[in-house]
């Protein structure tokens, strides 16, 4: 509801007007009043000027953590603190709940009961066969009652169109209810047209991967936005390759950092492993190296990197970082990681000892 506006209550309204907190009707009332009263018009003008001056201020966050090095440090410290907080006894208790533990128990039980083993195997096979048949029917047959429809796709985006999209020709908008943003592309050559879609669409995905790989054509915010947009489909080989490439070659450390984050949840594909190890070994930004180090350690714990020397690149890079990295955090964390990995290796050696 629009309140009556007088000179006496104009100041508060002018503050809210400049802050963008008024609804359209209230804004109109403020503007009308300012046109009729010179004092209030001056007051409004000063509020808007104050707002401009505040907007022109360079925010401390932009200068204190321009390359997100501090963010990477904070994350490392936090995850390390969480590791400490988790504690070993709790992990041992929790391992009782893991399926592997129970499978291990059954395995020992079956050794002494071959009849049970055979019966269980037959039962599991029958259940799997039935489920697989049903699943195959569901994915191959149309739902009864619904007609099969054919949708014609718009013309695919050509290489020439890709090369002529400029920074203003791509827009990413978050969608409510979905982690994937809506992408709008404005293509000007040879014929102007707009293509919309989400990163689930192959064509949109192709454009976004092109954006990530072309730092000269698109500015940082577009590349960062494209990586975020592609994150839900980072398992796609094309996307994975583009992100690995960005991690190796993008000129902006913030983009490289974001690429590592996006690749963090991706499986153990060799190109991804190689890009992450390359970042740990060669990136000139310590924030990126820290994030790469954390990712390598996490993956080694999950046994996604082979850890057996001497042909193990990950371990040799960790050793190299422990000795030679200019960043003390990376040196000490690499040493910790090597120590932890050694103890994990010892834990995993079966009774009877190692090979000499």
């Amino acid at each position, binding site marked *: 509801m629009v309140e009556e506006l007088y000179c006496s209550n104009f100041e508060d309204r002018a503050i809210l007007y400049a802050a963008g907190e008024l609804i359209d009707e209230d804004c109109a009332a403020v503007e009308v009043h300012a046109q009729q009263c010179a004092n209030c018009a001056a007051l409004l003008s000063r509020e808007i000027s104050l707002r401009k001056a505040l907007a022109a201020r360079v925010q401390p*966050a932009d200068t204190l953590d321009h390359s997100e090095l501090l963010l990477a440090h904070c994350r490392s410290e936090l995850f390390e603190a969480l590791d400490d907080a988790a504690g070993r006894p709790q992990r041992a208790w929790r391992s009782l709940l893991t399926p592997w533990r129970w499978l291990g128990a059954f395995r020992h039980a079956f050794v002494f009961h071959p009849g049970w083993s055979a019966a269980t195997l037959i039962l599991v096979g029958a259940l799997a066969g039935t489920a697989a048949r049903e699943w195959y029917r569901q994915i191959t047959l149309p739902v009864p009652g619904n007609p099969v429809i054919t949708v014609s796709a718009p013309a695919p985006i050509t290489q020439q169109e890709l090369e002529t999209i400029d920074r203003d020709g791509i827009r990413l908008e978050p969608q409510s209810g979905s982690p994937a943003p809506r992408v709008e592309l404005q293509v000007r050559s040879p014929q102007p047209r707009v293509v919309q879609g989400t990163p689930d*669409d192959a064509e949109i995905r192709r454009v976004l991967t092109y954006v990530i790989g072309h730092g000269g054509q698109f500015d940082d915010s577009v590349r960062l936005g494209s990586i975020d947009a592609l994150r839900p489909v980072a398992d796609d080989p094309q996307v994975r390759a583009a992100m690995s490439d960005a991690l190796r070659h993008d000129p902006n450390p913030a983009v490289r950092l974001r690429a590592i984050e996006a690749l963090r949840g991706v499986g153990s594909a060799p190109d991804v492993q190689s890009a992450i190890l390359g970042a740990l070994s060669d990136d000139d930004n310590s924030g990126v190296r820290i994030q790469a180090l954390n990712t390598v350690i996490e993956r080694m714990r999950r046994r996604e990197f082979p850890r057996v020397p001497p042909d193990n690149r990950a371990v040799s890079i960790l050793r190299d970082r422990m000795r030679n990295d200019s960043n003390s955090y990376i040196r000490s964390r690499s040493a910790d990681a090597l120590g932890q990995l050694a103890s994990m290796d010892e834990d995993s050696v079966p009774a009877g000892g190692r090979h000499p």
Partner: protein
Amino acid sequence: MPSEVIVGSPPFEALPNPGTTAIASPGSAALPAKDDRTLIERAQAGDRSAFELLVQRYDRQVLRLALNVLGSAEDARDVYQEAFLKIYRNLHRFRFECAFYTWIYRIVTNICLDHLRRRHSHPEEQPPLLRAASFEENRDGDFFDRQQGSGAHSDPERQVLGHEIGRRVEAALQSLSPRERMVFEMRHYQGMKLRAIGEALGTTEETVKNSLFRATRKLRTQLEGLR
């Protein structure tokens, strides 16, 4: 499948903000609540990787808020660490009664406010303030008059003036009380609505509005005095 919507004249004018191609960052409030919910439930069940994903989704904004309000990398680092450890330990208490980012902001703003209050009571521990320069002292006209049409980056004098404005605004912001500072930061630099700020600070929209009025008046007075 992508859809082609317009064929014809270039529709660039139709875009509301053609220059702003930015997507909401993973830390932004615009992220879908449903997706958060799955991660939160997994994290509450003890899934550490889900918690790490939640951290990565919100920590940029948290660190940014702490850096802007406290102006010190060391303090911001402490706030980050304290806030997320607190979130980790209390995650089981989160009952989806408010948005997750509101809950996070409540924790972060409380910790930032503690830091600011400590500084106010121990000013000797305050980090060095940005110098309030005397560059403009002999210039004619009022500070606000000189803002008209500013923003060009081509003119070196304008650039110096821009830095000057930054220093003065920074010094003026330091004069606010901790709560006013927080409200002002969240409204002007984090883009939060007054209602959301109220939820984060555990107070009403009306109280937040009054803090904003007081902060704005103080800033105006501080900046007006500079001629």
